[in-house]
Every structure is written in structure tokens, then in C-alpha cells.
């Protein structure tokens, strides 16, 4: 097997809170192959978004920084790369679509300009070429009458349209990796489906690998090949999507899957009560305490869970989980 497109090794991201520095992401390793779609799942505050930002060298500094590990993109370590090196990769080889389409576009420039400038910076295109390219991209992401829309300002477009523009910006240089950080959270359900259709269609056309960050298990099932579950800054389960949905191993993953509400079909059925995982994600200050970070919320927590942190162990083809229960089962 050839080297993966992107290989994250033992990544640690720390934030300075007051005088202390706390690692909010720890021991994180994962690979991404060409054209693959990887889902990163977890509740808010699990370190998904900050991991995504670190891939582009955009961890807000201060207070944050990548404090250990490597991010190897085509063999080049992006940790410690210069701004110039990173700028050649950002938007060109690796690009990102953010969660908030309403605020992610600059209000004072036309959407055409915001797409075109990316092409100018990376390809050195002329103004006219870049503008034509912008219109082509608008057409590609399914915006009607792109010649006119290119002259629009962001406030003249709906949320769904703006997210399409963000996708156009991200894809204008045909990147090898597209990171989508909860790209549809702020949008209507019907628009969500359209955006994901668009992602799949464009992935076929451009062949980019996608890292899809979400807390929506349904989206993961539809969109991804492989899933990684994060909790409190660590990877706790990983595997191909089919096995993950059918047979989740970590109690947290099982909890997440049980949280999906089901529509009851027959009118006589009382709807099932909504499932919830009790408690909340630990605050950054509470990280680094001994034991499994999920233990306080875990229905199966044992004595051992509270004192010793379980390591990630392989449990089959491409699957791994960090839970003491697995060892109990194996023993």
C-alpha cells in the first residue's frame, strides 16, 4: 500500500488557559487515502473543529498551538511549516468549508471576486481568466444564472447559496483534500440534502478526499467510507462505516447512535422517548485527569475505568476502540 495522502501522527494541540497549558487534542493519529471520505464524529467540544483547523495551520495562536506530533501531507510535515509554505497548500491542495455560511464570506466583496481571488493567488490567473473560472465554479455548484450571481454580495444570497459559494471557493483550485466542518448545521434539512448531493457529485468530478466533520450519524452513514469517533480530544473508536453503524463498540458511540430519533410509522405507536447520553463533555480544564474521560457518563463504567485510561486497541479489520470493556470481552 502506498503512503496515504494525509497522515496525522500523535497530534497534540494545546491551549493556554490562564497560566496553564492544557492539551485539548491528544495522541491523535489517522490516515486519509486519496479520494477517501473520512467522517469525524463527536459532540461539540470534542476537538473535531480544532483538529480540522490544525490541518491548515489555522489553530488560533495565541492561545492555541500544535504542541506535538506530525501532520504529513504528501510526506511534507505541516507542523512547523512556514506561513509561505502553508499558504501554497491552503485553498490549493487542502481547503475547508466552514460551519457558518452566513458569516464566512466577506460582506464587502462580490462572491465572484471572493472565488476569483483564490484562483489568482494560487494559479496566477489574470483577472478575466479568474472571473470566468469563478462563474464556471458557480455553475458547477448549482447556482442559477451564475453570470449575474457572481456580481452579488453575500447578503443578497440565502444561506444555502452562500454555502454553495463557500464550496465553490474551496474547490476552485481542485484541492486534494476538502475539509467540511459541519457544513450543513446552519441550513434547512432540504438544503442539507442538496449540499451533500453536491459534495458527492463534486467528489466524483474532482476526485478530492473529504474529511467530513459532523455530529449527525445519519450523514456519516450516507457520506463516508470510514469513521473516527472523538471524545474529549482523543480518538476512541475507528472503523469502516458499515461495521460502525451495525456494531458500535464503544459505549459513547453506541450512545451517539441511540440518540438518533426514529419516526414511528403507525399512528397507534407512542413515540419512543428520546435517548440522551447523561452529562456533558468535560471542559478543557478537566482534561488530563486519570482514567477514561468518558467514565463519568458511561453506563458500564468499572473501577478500572476511573483510574486507568484505556489505549486504542485493534479489534478487527481496520477497526480499533479504546475501552476496557473490549479487553473484558476478549479475556
Amino acid at each position, binding site marked *: 500500500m502506498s503512503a496515504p495522502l494525509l497522515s496525522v501522527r500523535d497530534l497534540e494541540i494545546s491551549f493556554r488557559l490562564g497560566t496553564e497549558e492544557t492539551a485539548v487534542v491528544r495522541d491523535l493519529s489517522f490516515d486519509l487515502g486519496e479520494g477517501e471520505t473520512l467522517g469525524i464524529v463527536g459532540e461539540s467540544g470534542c476537538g473535531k473543529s480544532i483538529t480540522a483547523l490544525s490541518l*491548515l495551520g*489555522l489553530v488560533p495562536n495565541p492561545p492555541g498551538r500544535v504542541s506535538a506530533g506530525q501532520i504529513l501531507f504528501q510526506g511534507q510535515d505541516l507542523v512547523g511549516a512556514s*506561513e509561505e509554505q*502553508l*499558504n*501554497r*497548500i*491552503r*485553498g*490549493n491542495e487542502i*481547503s*475547508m468549508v*466552514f460551519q*457558518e455560511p452566513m*458569516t*464566512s*464570506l*466577506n*460582506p*464587502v*466583496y462580490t462572491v465572484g471576486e471572493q472565488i476569483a*481571488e*483564490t484562483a489568482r*493567488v*494560487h494559479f496566477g490567473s489574470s483577472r478575466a481568466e479568474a472571473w470566468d473560472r469563478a462563474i464556471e465554479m458557480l455553475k458547477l455548484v448549482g447556482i442559477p444564472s451564475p453570470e449575474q450571481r457572481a456580481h452579488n*454580495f453575500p*447578503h443578497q444570497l440565502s444561506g444555502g447559496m452562500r454555502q454553495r459559494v*463557500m464550496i465553490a*471557493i474551496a474547490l476552485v483550485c481542485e484541492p486534494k483534500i476538502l475539509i467540511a466542518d459541519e457544513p450543513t448545521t446552519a441550513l434547512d434539512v432540504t438544503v442539507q440534502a442538496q449540499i451533500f448531493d453536491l459534495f458527492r457529485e463534486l467528489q466524483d468530478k474532482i476526485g478530492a478526499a473529504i474529511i467530513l466533520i459532523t455530529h449527525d450519524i445519519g450523514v456519516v452513514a450516507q457520506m463516508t467510507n470510514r469513521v473516527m469517533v472523538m471524545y474529549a480530544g482523543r480518538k476512541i473508536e475507528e472503523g469502516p462505516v458499515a461495521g460502525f453503524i451495525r456494531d458500535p463498540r464503544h459505549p459513547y458511540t453506541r450512545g451517539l447512535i441511540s440518540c438518533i430519533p426514529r419516526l414511528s410509522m403507525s399512528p397507534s405507536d407512542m413515540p419512543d422517548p428520546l435517548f440522551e447520553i447523561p452529562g456533558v463533555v468535560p471542559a478543557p480544564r478537566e482534561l488530563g485527569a486519570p482514567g477514561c474521560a468518558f467514565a463519568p457518563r458511561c453506563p458500564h463504567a468499572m473501577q478500572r475505568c476511573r483510574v486507568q485510561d484505556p489505549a486504542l486497541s485493534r479489534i478487527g479489520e481496520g477497526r480499533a476502540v479504546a475501552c476496557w470493556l473490549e479487553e473484558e470481552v476478549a479475556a
Partner: protein
Amino acid sequence: MIKGTLGKTANTVILLIAVLVLNFAMIHVAPGDPVEALVGEMGGATTEQIAELRAQFGLDQPLYVQIGKYLWNVAQGDLGYSYYYDQPVTSLILDRIGPTLLLVTTALFSAIVIGTVLGVFSAQRRNSLLSHLVTVLSLAGFSAPVFWIGIMLILLLSVAIPILPISGMTSSEVPEGTFWYILDVAHHLVLPALTLGLIYLAFYSRLSRASMIEVLQTDYVRTARAKGLPRRMVIYKHALRNAVLPVVTFAGLQFGQVISGAVLVETVFAWPGLGTLAFDSILRRDTTTLLGILFFSALMVVVMNILTDIVYRRIDPRIKTA
């Protein structure tokens, strides 16, 4: 669009009439009138003479008649006649408005430009020496009264280190209309403009610093960085244009304040502008001139607000109507 412009024009006219009426009434309420001042300078007069003078100036008529007549004259472009200066008020003001506009725009414009530059730089390096210096200087600029700063600047730059002239706008030996004349005026302009502009410099450096810090944390600046744009493009193209919006807003609003500040500064530095004229006309109860100046100041503020509006629309596409 046309409807909006018409509405705005109507508002402006009503505003100017209100300014005129209000000023007229206020000056009327204040003790003393031009006749008293004139009589004082003549060294006394009989009651009949005073009554005759009052009748000649129309001061014996009821207030509303006086205001009505004045408004009618202003509507026809006649601001009245100054008996003290023995000139029509309009030509008196037009003589003096140049120096005032020069002083006010120089002070405000340099305050905006330098203040924004300082603010933008210190926003990027929030813990640098420059950033702290800007904070301290702007605090000092805020707290110190204008006249005190003027006197201190005179003491420092004209007395202790005599490199700048203390007062006036020109040196008598330089012939008008030459290149040296322009330099000479600029030389004289430094101190008054500095005195007048310092507080605004302080204000704009703080305002643009705060605004820039806020803009640098927005999602669209993050997008600009994620696109791989070089740093200078992120700062000067994507962040700066959004960060100057509050600066433009305040510049328009504060123009009136700067004009009133100019009265003090012109008096301190004997700058031959509207401020000195206003000061003198208050002392001499030259109400016609004073009213004219107040009217012109209001007019300048209105014009400046319209200009601000136009600039604002050019910078921010979200503002289209009203």
C-alpha cells in the same frame, strides 16, 4: 432612490431652518444687542439716538417679525450686513472660511489616516511596545483639554525648541501666490492642526484598533486565511475595509465637533478663520455675523454628513437605500 434623495433634501432644509430659528432666539435671549455695543464704542448716546438706531436695524419689531425677515433674506442668499466690519456677512464669511476648512480638514484627515494606521498596526501586535504606546498616548490625548495641549505644544515646539511659529497663518515677508507661500502656510498650520487633531488622533487610533481586533476574529478573515491568501491581502484587503467602517461613521459625526474645537484653537493660535471671527463677533454683539457663522457651520456639517453617506455606501455594499 430619487424619493430617498428628495426626502433627505427636505429634511436638510427643515433642519437648517430649525438651526436658524433656534440660534436667532437664543441670541435674542442673551443680554445686550449690537446697538448697545455700538453705543459703547461711540462713547454714549441719547435715548432718542439709541431708539433711532434700534429702528434702523429693525430691532424694535417683535421677535417673530425679525426672525421671519431674517429667514426670508437667508432664503435669498443674503445673510445680512455687519455694521462692525462694515461688510456683507456673506463676503466676510467667505473670506474666512478657507483657513478654517484648511485647518479642520487637515486636522481631521491626518487624525483619521494616522490614527487608523496606528490602530491597525497595534491590533496586529497586541502586546508589542507600539501597541502599549498607542494605548497610553490615546488615553493622554483623551484626558487632556485642547487649550492645555495647545499651550504645552507652543511651549515645547515654539519656545523651548523654536522650530514652529506661534501664531497667525503667514509670515508677512513671504509674497502671496508663490511656492514658498504654500510652505509658509503649511509651516504655520502644524501647531494648530496638531492641537486640534490630537484628541481625534487618539480617538481614531483606539477606535480602529478595537475595530480591527474584532474584524481579525471574524469568520470571513479565517476564510481568507484558509484560502491561502498572503498575509498582507488578508489584512489590507479583507480586514481593513471592514474595520474602517466605524471610523468613517464617526468622522462624519464628529465633523461638527471639530468645527467647534476650531473656535478655541483658532483663538489660541490667532488663526484667521471663522473661529476667530465667531469669537470676535460674540465679544462685539455682532449678532448678524454670529448668526451667519452658525448657519455656515450647520451647512458644513450637513454637507459633510452627505459626503460620509456617499463614502459609506462605496465601502459597504449592504447600505443601498435610505
